[in-house]
């Protein structure tokens, strides 16, 4: 686990170190990198196979993007429609403008239930609003019931992926965690035995704890229904057995019509886990007497989303259906894993979503944690042009810095100014090339690369190698070639 080597990962963007700093210890953690590479490779190859068999994949993506865009354009009306239908079916709808209000609403609901324990379905929104520490502080114990979340909770670790949050932990590490926290000394380390241990550990919790908290994959405006997609059945347990169910959902989770699921469900599992459909999709509408919870609450969370909605380029961020395909394909994520992003939303989508949810006041290093290769855009089932949004956010970060006096001491700023001066004239450029060839020569190794530079140059070579300047520039070669021919 990364925790043993790097200290506890910090996923609060307000407290997390900048990406390049946070990434360093993770890059040195060979075990973690092996675990992340293995998991993302497996998902990617399964996804590629299933996407290839779908002859209308691009048409599905286009339809999904259109549905999500349309929904965002009319978000207010669809939320009101959802609220009206859900309420008519016996549900209670609450609105939270920020994380603190969402936590307060949930704590108040739990107080009314006199709950001392809750069972939880994996929900990104809960992690986003940092619900678990608030529950703990109020003396309410939360049992995470998704296997990966359980591993992280018992191992006091943090999620590093949106869909498979414990992908950085391997079987022997899981065995260690379960053996210690469940008191099972002789537990073997094969995944089957470990899964069985989790089943036994949680079974009584499902049957006895009367309050559940979960998330939503989709809210259906037309019917007031909620859909949850999952694999293990822990979701179905939490949605069916307790007396009271509290669903947390970002305001962007709504879909106009029930039939829009025909597009989303074909894309979601293939993109997320490389399956045609996830084992279980549950759909419910308010309260159904005799089947499932007697009380149902939905907490609609804004927490920065409406400000993203206001910006034309960035609005597409809210189309996201949290499949995490962009993480698995990202050359940066695949090297660092999720903890480097300092957010519950890592990877390319996290790099655009996190700073925006923070109103661009924190996580400003994340838009730069990308090579802009565009792989994320290619796999995105709702066609979010992540590179375009990254560039827009980079521009905003640079604009923020432009106003700061400290920029005059910033090597990057000075470097850019110098580059601007050099590139503005041919003579200056040639002079710089000549100087560079002489100055850099001592650092070029036999393989033609520069691996380390002293002083300020070290900032560059710390994380990348530099190609040594060739002995001749293109211009020089061209001129010489012309003379030979004549």
């Amino acid at each position, binding site marked *: 686990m990364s925790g043993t080597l790097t200290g506890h990962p910090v996923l609060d963007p307000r407290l997390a170190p900048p990406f390049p700093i946070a990434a360093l210890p993770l890059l040195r953690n060979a075990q973690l990198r092996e675990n992340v590479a293995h*998991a993302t490779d497996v998902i990617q190859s399964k996804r590629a196979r299933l996407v290839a068999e779908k002859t*209308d994949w691009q*048409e599905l993506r286009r*339809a999904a993007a*259109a*549905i999500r865009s*349309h929904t965002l354009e*009319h978000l*207010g*009306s669809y*939320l*009101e429609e959802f609220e009206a239908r859900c309420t008519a079916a016996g549900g209670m*709808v*609450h609105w*939270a*403008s920020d994380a603190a209000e969402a936590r307060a*609403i949930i704590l108040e609901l739990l107080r009314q239930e006199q709950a001392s324990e809750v069972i939880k379905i994996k929900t990104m929104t809960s992690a986003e609003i940092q619900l678990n520490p608030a529950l703990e502080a109020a003396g309410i114990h939360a049992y995470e*019931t998704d296997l990966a979340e359980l*591993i992280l909770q018992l191992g006091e670790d943090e999620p590093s992926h949106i869909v*498979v949050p*414990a*992908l950085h932990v391997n*079987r022997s590490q*899981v065995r260690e965690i379960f053996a210690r926290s469940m008191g099972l000394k002789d537990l073997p380390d094969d*995944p089957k035995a470990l*899964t069985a241990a989790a*089943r036994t550990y949680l079974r009584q919790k499902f*049957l006895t704890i009367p309050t559940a908290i979960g998330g939503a994959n989709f809210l259906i405006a*037309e*019917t007031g229904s909620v859909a949850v997609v999952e*694999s*293990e*059945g*822990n979701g*179905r347990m939490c949605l*069916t057995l307790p007396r009271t169910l509290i669903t947390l959902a970002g*305001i962007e989770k709504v879909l*106009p*019509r*029930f*039939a829009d699921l*025909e*597009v989303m*469900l074909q894309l979601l599992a293939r993109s997320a886990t490389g399956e*045609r*459909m*996830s*084992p*279980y*999709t549950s*759909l*419910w*509408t308010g309260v159904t007497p005799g*089947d*499932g919870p007697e009380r149902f609450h939905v907490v*609609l969370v*804004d927490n920065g989303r*409406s*400000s993203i*909605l206001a910006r034309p380029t960035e609005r597409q961020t809210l189309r996201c259906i949290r499949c995490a395909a962009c993480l698995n394909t990202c050359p940066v994520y695949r090297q660092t894993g999720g903890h480097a992003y300092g957010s519950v939303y890592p990877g390319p989508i996290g790099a655009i979503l996190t700073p925006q949810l923070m109103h661009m006041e924190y996580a400003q290093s994340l838009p730069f944690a990308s090579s802009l290769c565009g792989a994320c855009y290619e796999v995105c089932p709702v066609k979010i042009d992540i590179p375009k949004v990254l560039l827009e956010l980079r521009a905003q970060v640079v604009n923020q810095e432009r106003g700061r006096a400290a920029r005059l001491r910033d090597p990057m700023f000075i470097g850019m100014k110098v580059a601007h001066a050099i590139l503005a004239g041919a003579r200056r450029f040639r002079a710089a090339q000549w100087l560079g060839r002489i100055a850099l020569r001592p650092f070029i190794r036999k393989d033609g690369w520069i691996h380390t530079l002293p002083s300020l140059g070290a900032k560059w070579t710390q994380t990348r190698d530099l190609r040594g300047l060739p002995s001749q520039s293109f211009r020089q070669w061209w001129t010489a070639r012309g003379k030979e021919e004549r």
Partner: protein
Amino acid sequence: MSASAPSRQLILDRIRAATQNPRQSASNAAELSRSYIRRGKLGVQERLKLMIERLREYDAEVVDCVPEEVPAAIGAELASSGRRVFVAPEGLPAEWLVAGFDWKIDRGLENAEIEQAEGVVTAAFCGVADSGTILLHHSPSEGRRVLTLLPDWHLCILYASQVVETLPEYFDRCPSPGTPVLATYISGPSATADIEMTRIKGVHGPRFLNVILVRDGD
């Protein structure tokens, strides 16, 4: 809830300001272009073959029979499962409750009683061949959601006429205005790949899914 009423207005105001989209202008989502495949192309036999193939890929067991043979097929499945105590939804056809087994009919059974059962037998609303999915709308013959959740073994009776090729075709079959109040879509037994991406069957939901496909001549 009154406590969040100011926030409701605040959020809706922010959204309206962001989208500058007065309420009455909402155009219809149904008008969006949809060029993906809605209707399947396979004939009946190929469609059923695909359904069986996909189910088996999920490690579900599938047998088929003609309508007259359903009770006998159920009896054979129950017997070969080695189990004895089964729960059944209240609306399950009486002839499906084959003799020789201990049946608990769900007329408001407690969760603990359902948990004690070794298996469950239900009907289904629809099957989607493309993904091998069984879709339950929890009608009286499909049972409450908890029935197909707690027992470790689920036998589902699916009629050939209920099997469609594509997911959109299922949505076309849903009663307008498009609503099952409750639904569960099942694609193979409960599973996880959370530990090293190794697929493990049966975490919390049923570990075993068996399907009797009844060839009732589409």
